[in-house]
Every structure is written in structure tokens, then in C-alpha cells.
């Protein structure tokens, strides 16, 4: 549970219920409505929308957080496009990370969910167990993983030694540092699996039964019934997973600080370094807004693509 936008809720389809005060008391309805939502609006405007607007203005300034604030026009944007190698690098690191974590997580969780969807003794126990790592992710688990990845005594190298492979410098080598983070992230795959399993269980049994009567093979069942009916769930996981993994920060900040040779400089980590280490708030605001736009853009793109491959049952009626 790394981030709120990773959280799993979404648009409810229902409209607000009809309000039942007598006619002619419409003003009362308005009043109550606004009264009930006012604390939320206040907090939202002050601490979310407000800061967002402030950072919109900060994009055109140079500002170190003290009294002096200088208007620099489009200089920040120019720097971003023309000169910033770290920005390009961090974008690449985050994109590679997001691509691999999301696609691997979806494949693995689909396989696990297909297995756990069978009725066998102890399936609720295994389901609960597989979700456990997702619930405890955080700073402490990150350090446990660092111990697992340790070069001399760590679990991974111990296993490699049993099979006579060479030791791998997991978090300290350029080739292996980013894959190490991907492995670390995949430890939380149970979160995907629970949702995938729910999607599987919402597929009515009679569809499979009918296809079986018609002589469909196991593979055909999966390809033409399970997969299409599961596509909304997969789509949901893709969006949530992508948003979440583009925002990865904590692990990188604690273990490698972007190194070695910037191979793990995640985008948000770079954003943090620009803002709070280099104290360039104006430039950091440009990076922040770009992240916002990238996430919005990718989400919209996926919604658009989804019309081609996501199958919603209600569309058939």
C-alpha cells in the first residue's frame, strides 16, 4: 500500500439518490448539501488544489525556499528539454521499472489466481498468506530485502552458491540494481492476485459449462472465455499498477539513492533530490507537473486503448 492513487476503488456507476424533502424547500436541500461537503472542500482546496496551483506558478521561477523568488520565464522548461541528462535518465529508469513490474506482476498474479481458484483444501489459507507481503510493505521490509540482497551472506547469493553460480552484486552493480528493485516490488504481487482472483470468481460458471458441452479444450476455454471476461480486471490492475510504480520513491531513497551511476534514479527520487537537496523549487515544480501530466496522459491513453480490448459484459445487452 504505497500510495493512495494505487488504492483500489473506482467510479461507481450509480447516481445520487432522490432527496425526499417536500417541494418548495429546495433551498434547504442546497444548504444541507453544501454544509455536508464544506469540511471536505475546505481541506481539499487548502491542502491539495492550492498547492497544485502554487506549483503551477513556481514553474516560471527560480526559488530556493527563502525570501528571494525570481521570475525566469521559460528558462526551467528550456533546461528540462535541452540540458538535463538526469531527467532523461530518471524517466527511463522509471519507465523500465514500471513496464517490468506491471507486466510481470500481471502474469504472475494471473497464474497464481488461476491456481487458487481451484477448490482444494486450504485455498483460503494460501490466499491470505500470499497477500501478506502487500500489507507490510514499507521501510522495514525494504531493509529486510537489502539483507536478502547482501553480497556475502544474503539469501539470494547463498542460493546461487548452492547451484554453483557466481555471486551477484545485487544492489551495487549497474546491471543488477534495477532488476533487484523489480524483484523487491514483485514481492507484493499478492495484492494483484487477490483482485485477479475476485475477477475470476465473478465469471459465471455456466459459461464454462456451456463451452465444455460444445467440446472446447482447456486452452480454448481460457483464451475465449476466461481472458475476455477478466479483461476489465486486468485493465484495472494495469492502471493502478502503472500509477503506483511510476511513483516509487521510498525503496530507492533508502537503499541506493539513485546509484550506482544513476541506474536506480527513479523519477520521484530525482524530483525529491532537485527539490530538497539542491533546493531548486521552481525546477522541481516543472518535474512535478510533468509527472502529473504523464500519469494523466497514460491513464487516458489506456482508457482509449481499452475500448479495443477490454470486454464489459453489460455492453452485450
Amino acid at each position, binding site marked *: 500500500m504505497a500510495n493512495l492513487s494505487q488504492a483500489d476503488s*473506482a467510479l461507481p456507476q450509480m447516481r445520487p439518490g432522490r432527496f*425526499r424533502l417536500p417541494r418548495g424547500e429546495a433551498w434547504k436541500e442546497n444548504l444541507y448539501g453544501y454544509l455536508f*461537503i464544506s469540511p471536505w*472542500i475546505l481541506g481539499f482546496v487548502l*491542502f491539495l488544489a492550492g498547492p497544485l496551483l502554487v506549483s503551477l506558478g513556481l514553474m516560471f521561477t527560480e526559488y530556493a525556499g527563502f525570501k528571494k523568488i525570481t521570475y525566469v520565464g521559460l528558462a526551467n522548461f528550456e533546461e528540462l528539454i535541452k540540458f538535463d541528462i538526469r531527467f532523461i535518465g530518471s524517466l527511463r529508469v522509471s519507465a523500465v521499472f514500471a513496464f517490468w513490474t506491471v507486466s510481470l506482476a500481471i502474469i504472475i498474479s494471473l497464474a497464481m489466481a488461476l491456481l487458487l481458484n481451484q477448490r482444494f483444501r486450504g485455498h483460503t489459507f494460501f490466499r491470505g498468506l500470499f497477500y501478506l507481503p502487500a500489507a507490510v510493505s514499507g521501510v522495514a521490509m525494504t531493509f529486510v530485502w537489502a539483507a536478502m540482497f547482501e553480497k556475502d551472506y544474503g539469501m539470494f547469493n547463498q542460493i546461487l552458491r548452492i547451484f554453483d553460480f557466481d555471486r551477484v552484486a545485487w544492489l551495487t552493480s549497474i546491471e543488477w540494481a534495477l532488476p533487484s528493485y523489480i524483484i523487491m516490488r514483485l514481492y507484493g504481487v499478492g495484492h494483484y492476485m487477490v483482485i485477479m482472483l475476485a475477477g475470476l470468481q465473478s465469471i459465471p460458471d455456466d459459461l464454462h459449462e456451456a463451452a465444455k458441452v460444445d467440446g472446447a479444450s482447456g486452452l480454448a476455454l481460457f483464451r475465449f472465455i476466461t481472458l475476455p471476461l477478466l479483461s476489465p480486471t486486468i485493465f484495472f490492475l494495469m492502471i493502478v499498477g502503472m500509477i503506483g510504480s511510476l511513483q516509487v520513491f521510498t525503496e530507492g531513497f533508502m537503499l541506493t539513492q539513485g546509484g550506482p551511476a544513476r541506474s536506480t534514479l527513479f523519477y520521484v527520487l530525482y524530483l525529491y533530490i532537485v527539490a530538497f537537496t539542491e533546493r531548486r523549487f521552481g525546477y522541481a515544480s516543472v518535474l512535478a507537473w510533468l509527472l502529473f501530466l504523464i500519469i494523466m496522459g497514460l491513464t487516458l491513453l489506456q482508457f482509449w486503448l481499452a475500448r479495443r480490448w477490454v470486454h464489459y459484459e453489460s455492453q452485450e445487452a
Partner: protein
Amino acid sequence: MVFRELSLPVRLLFYLFLVVAAVSILYPLTWMSYTSLKTNEEVMFSPFGLPTRISFENIAEAWQTGNFARLYANSILIAVVSVIGIISISTTAAYGLARYHFAANRPLFLYFLVGMAVPTQALMVPSFKLMAILDSWAAALHLPIPLLNSPLAVILTYMSWSSLAIIFIRAYFISIPPELEDAARVDGARELQILRHVMVPLAMPAIATMTIFYFVFFWNDFLWPLIYLHKHTLRTIPLGIMHFEGKYVSLWSLQVAALSLAAWPPILIYILFHRRIQRGLTEGALKF
């Protein structure tokens, strides 16, 4: 495919896979737990072996030197106050949005849905700045509400992330038939009383799910305390752990003991509430 129809070797293979998966998931957690119960000598001689005798000396020492009593108090304060705040705000707002037809209802709802997509990290800089400005205003007016280096800054920021809870609880309110409220209204109940005594008890499953979700999230969050809290007396558990691990690099057993102290509360919460957490996740995803 029915499990019982499969042949015995296939079934055994199936269980073997599950057990391997279960062991690799449990290994890091159990390793952490039992290592923190080992004595220093044992850790030296066999860093990954099981303890021969359970000892709480490292746990006790980590608790002392890491000042865990303080860390726990800070984390509990921030998480509990933020959760109470966010749940009360969201429940009232969700009720307003679910039941009253005022002009701005629909546009506001859509607008704040977009708000959920804002990556909160994008707000680090302006939020930090905003707290500094509000703090100086409060100081100028002689108000006793410090916002720099204060848990209040973290709490206020967390409390503004209510979009998810509002959407979740609103959907639940809408699914409750309005006749119950009408009955209460006929009996002379006021709007707030209806919310408190009729709707909140009915929507308890949704509210409970959100409470647990936000609590674990705030408990584990690292970025916002890092940005706002710069005094060591204010550190939350994630911050404390980070500094602790940096300070006692060579004391392996002590480090691991500190990790156990930090990781076990969310694990216990999960074990206690895992049915509700999983059901909540599932409901949310299927409405998509």
C-alpha cells in the same frame, strides 16, 4: 476443471508449487522475526541459521536505543488523528454527495475524481511551502498552532487525501434505500442525527474498510514525515528506522530487531482484519 478429478501426481505437484511459493513469501518475514530473537554470538556464527535459544536482549536494546516508545507514540498520534479526521470528513461529504441534489453536486464529484489521480509526490514542494506560510501567519496572530516541524502539518496533508474514501463511502450510501432516512425524518430527526444514527451504522462495512486501509497507509508512509519533520523527537517509525539503520550499520542483530519492532504492528493488523481488507479491495476493483 475440478480439483478432485485430477490425478494424484498432478495434485501433489500443485501443492508443491503452493508450498514453494508460500515458503518464499514467508522466508523474509520469518528470517527477520527469528533473527531478532537470536543472541549476538549466534548471529555472528550463523547469520541465517535458526536460534537455538530465544533471547529478547536485542529487541529490548533496539527498543531502548532506537527510542521506540517515542517513535510508536508519534506514529500512533499521526495515524490515529489523520484517520479520524479523514473518515469524519469523508463520511459527511459522501452523505452530502449521495443524498442532496444541489447545483454543484455532479461537477464537484467529477472534479474530485480527477483529484484522486494527482500523484501526491507532485505536491511536495508547494505543500512544504504552504505550511511555512501558514506557520508564519499563525505566529503573527499569536495562535498556538505550529506547522513547521509539527505533526499537525503531516496530519493536515493526509486529511486532504479524502477522495478515495469519499468515492468508496458514497457508493455505499447510494446503495442504501432512502426509506430509512425518510422514516427517521418523519419522526423528527435532524439531518446530522440521521447521518450519525441511521446511515453511519448501516455503512459501517465501507467505513471500516477505509479506516483500516488509511491506517496502514499512514503508518507505513515515509515521504511526508520526511518532508515535514526534521526534529528527532518528532520522528515516526519509518523515519526512525531509517536513521537507526544508518547509525548501527555494523550491529546486524540490533538492526534486524528494530525492523521487527517496526514491521509487526501492520502484520498484526493484517492478521486480525485480513478478511475485511481483502473484501474491501475486491469490492473496489469490481466496481471499476
